[in-house]
């Protein structure tokens, strides 16, 4: 066998109170796509951050082409040809897309930037990636998936010198179309001899592009194998040390009364004529391509954004939300898409984050919080969702997937009846995903209604009772679970199919409704 492109041997890293990595080995060959798997908090990102020079290792060594190297900072890593797409996006919001892509590596002479060449190269790169993003737009104008594409473009900015490319959950915010483009690109790079580390929680992707797989558990190696020699269930049991019988354990609940109804919601330039309903016991899926407006719907019905037009009913009663607090009072909970920006107060501990929406209840009328009340509220949530953290830990110290579970936990702990989940399983490991699905089953069984926005079609198809498909700010189509297939949903999302393919309870209800 030829000399490995990169070897990490015996890597140790501990944070105050946690051993994140405990003697981990990883070997990469040039030209391979090496999948790194593990439950949330297994240490995947930490290992890659050490490679990127973001953290210093406590022990262990790193060899490139057989030679030991010292990676003291991000610049060293770059100089060695290591490129990393981090799990938590790291872009500069106010700078343009083009500048972000070439940040730290802009073409310049004597410190003066060559803008023309910078733009031209950015445009070329973006079109290689097959995305239509304005290179001059400031990044803070982009939606999360677009930012993710910029992040990918940034890692590829000077591919010529890249020998190792790390992708930490690059597709967690992407829809299938962008995923296809990205995979094409990964294959081309691998052919060119780049060693690629690919971290994901989407097991379907593993077999599409991976050559070898390394599984971590609790900061230790479990195994490294050729993917041809493993099965999905084998991987799952390696990661979780248990078997998962069913990946989409949908348990239909009895459908009850209407909980929420939107009628003709609209906001200039963003949403148009959004009408649908959610009934007790129902999971309503919502599909769409990047930027279709799903997040805007979620925000509009939870009081996060104002709407220009339309009406909203909760249990048949017209409501108008001035702030999310009003929606929460009506029993509506929103799990936002971007947990870092909208979901977590990173400096607060886990218990206080979970208790935040329930503060009034925790505190009672006088507004005084009894000692440990929050911890008491949070403890069962931490247990039920298997969050790898203590109630007193700051949430910023948690792994990405565990942070996601904390955000979810905020609503589970309360008495919301209507849940709006925007990408609920983003960055969540396969075991936890199933737990979340089971949680959704429990919620619907108890009479709750759920709007689940997701870019993972299998999960939508597997868990929804109905699926709404959005296209350019409108509801393009609506399917019953039985009528929905991958192809039909996709073509609706692309705007190819007719407006409504199946009978739509919400629309029918609206057509038959008597004014007053």
């Amino acid at each position, binding site marked *: 066998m030829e000399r490995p492109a990169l070897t990490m041997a015996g890597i140790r890293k501990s944070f105050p109170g946690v051993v994140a990595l405990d003697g981990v080995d990883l070997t990469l060959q040039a030209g391979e796509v090496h999948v790194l798997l593990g439950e949330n908090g297994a240490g995947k990102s930490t290992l890659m951050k050490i490679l990127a020079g973001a953290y210093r290792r406590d022990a262990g060594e790193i060899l490139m082409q057989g030679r030991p190297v010292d990676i003291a900072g991000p610049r060293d890593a770059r100089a060695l040809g290591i490129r990393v797409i981090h799990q938590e996006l790291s872009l500069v919001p106010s700078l343009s897309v083009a500048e972000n892509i070439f940040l730290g590596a802009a073409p310049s002479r004597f410190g003066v930037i060559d803008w023309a060449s910078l733009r031209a190269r950015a445009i070329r790169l973006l079109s290689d990636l097959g995305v239509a993003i304005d290179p001059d737009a400031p990044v803070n104008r982009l939606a999360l998936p677009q930012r993710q594409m910029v992040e990918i473009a940034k890692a590829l900015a000077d591919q010529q010198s890249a020998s190792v490319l790390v992708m930490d959950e690059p597709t967690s915010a992407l829809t299938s179309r962008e995923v296809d483009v990205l995979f094409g690109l990964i294959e081309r790079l691998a052919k060119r001899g780049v060693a690629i580390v690919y971290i994901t929680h989407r097991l379907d992707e593993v077999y599409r592009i991976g050559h070898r797989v390394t599984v971590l558990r609790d900061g230790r190696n479990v195994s490294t194998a050729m993917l041809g020699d493993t099965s999905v269930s084998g991987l799952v049991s390696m990661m979780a040390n248990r078997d998962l019988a069913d990946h989409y354990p949908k348990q239909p609940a009895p459908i009850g009364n209407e909980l929420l109804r939107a009628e003709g919601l609209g906001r200039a330039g963003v949403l148009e004529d959004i009408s649908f309903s959610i009934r007790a016991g129902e999971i309503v899926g919502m599909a769409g391509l990047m930027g279709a407006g799903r997040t805007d719907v979620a925000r509009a019905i939870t009081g996060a954004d104002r709407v220009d037009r339309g009406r909203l009913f909760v249990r048949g009663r017209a409501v108008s939300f001035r702030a999310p607090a009003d929606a929460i009072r009506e029993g509506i909970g929103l799990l936002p898409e971007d947990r870092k*920006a909208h979901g977590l107060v990173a400096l607060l501990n886990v218990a*206080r984050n979970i208790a*935040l929406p329930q503060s009034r209840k925790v505190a009672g009328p006088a507004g005084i919080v009894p000692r440990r009340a929050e911890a008491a509220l949070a403890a069962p949530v931490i247990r039920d969702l298997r969050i790898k953290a203590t109630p007193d830990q700051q949430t910023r110290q948690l792994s990405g997937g565990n942070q996601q579970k904390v955000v979810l936990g905020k609503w589970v702990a309360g008495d919301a009846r209507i849940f709006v989940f925007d990408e609920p399983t983003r960055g969540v490991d396969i075991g936890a995903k199933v737990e979340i699905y089971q949680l959704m089953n429990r919620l619907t069984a108890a009479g709750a209604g759920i709007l689940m926005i997701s870019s993972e079609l299998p999960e939508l198809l597997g868990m929804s009772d109905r699926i709404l498909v959005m296209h350019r700010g409108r509801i393009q189509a609506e399917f019953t679970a039985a009528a929905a297939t991958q192809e039909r949903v996709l073509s609706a999302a692309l705007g190819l199919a007719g407006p409504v393919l199946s009978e739509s309870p919400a629309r029918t209800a609206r057509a038959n409704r008597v004014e007053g």
Partner: protein
Amino acid sequence: MKARRFGTLIGLVVLCLVLWALTPFFLTVSNLLNIAEQTSINAIVAAGMTFVILSGGIDLSVGSIVALSGVVLGLSLHAGYSPAVALPVMIAAGVLAGATNGLLIDRGRLPPFIVTLGMMSIARGAALLITEGRPISGFEESFRALATARVGFVPAPVLIMATVYLVAHFVLTRTTFGRYVYAIGGNEDAARLSGVRIHLHKPAIYAVSGLTSALAAMILTARLNSAQPIAGTMYELDAIAATVIGGTSLMGGEGTLAGTLIGALIMGVLRNGLNLLGVSSFLQQIVIGGVIVGAVLVDTVLKRPRT
């Protein structure tokens, strides 16, 4: 967080040890009471400032609000109202000015720095205007007792300071409002989406700062037996320094009141010590600047995680 508070406390203790070694006048009961009394005004202002900074804001107007509420108090007392009337009126003035800051910041979505910079100028101008620039002096003993009385051997301002800190600490650690202060400072968007009514709580946070400024003005007026429209100049810098030395992050979301109190004491002890040692005024400025940076540096080094 605990390590951090600890770090600042070490700084205070070291400072005290150094002064104890350098001058026999430092470690006497009367001097320590002296320091506590002198620290009280800055400490009280800094308590409100801590609320504001924890919420991710800043309040430059505290000094001017001290002046404004002070002259409101002075005028009320001179107009013949009893302290039982005049004090609520002056406190209302402070709270109102603070709440106005908060409303402008929240409703107008303006940077706190600018709004409170404007208020700094406006409140000062108003204080000068209503007094025509003259101090209002000479109050009855019943009122002056707020500064001069002693309970046991503890001066009244120190008692007031202790009460303010106990109440504020309770509010910050044990009430929903306190939680919201941290949540808003940590991530305002997330707090809003979690049902925190920002429109209610932001003005309240700045009102707290207005309230503590008014309480400080009360002590100051009693102490000087005079309400001056030019009082409180630069108080904002002292209060911010105390807060930040005490470990509260200017980014918001992180910090404690105990830290702020220690921060205020460090500044008070330092000034007192330099006076006792007879250090020249110019050198004092250099030493104070150095100690401010040094205190935070020690604290940061102690707290720094290995990465």
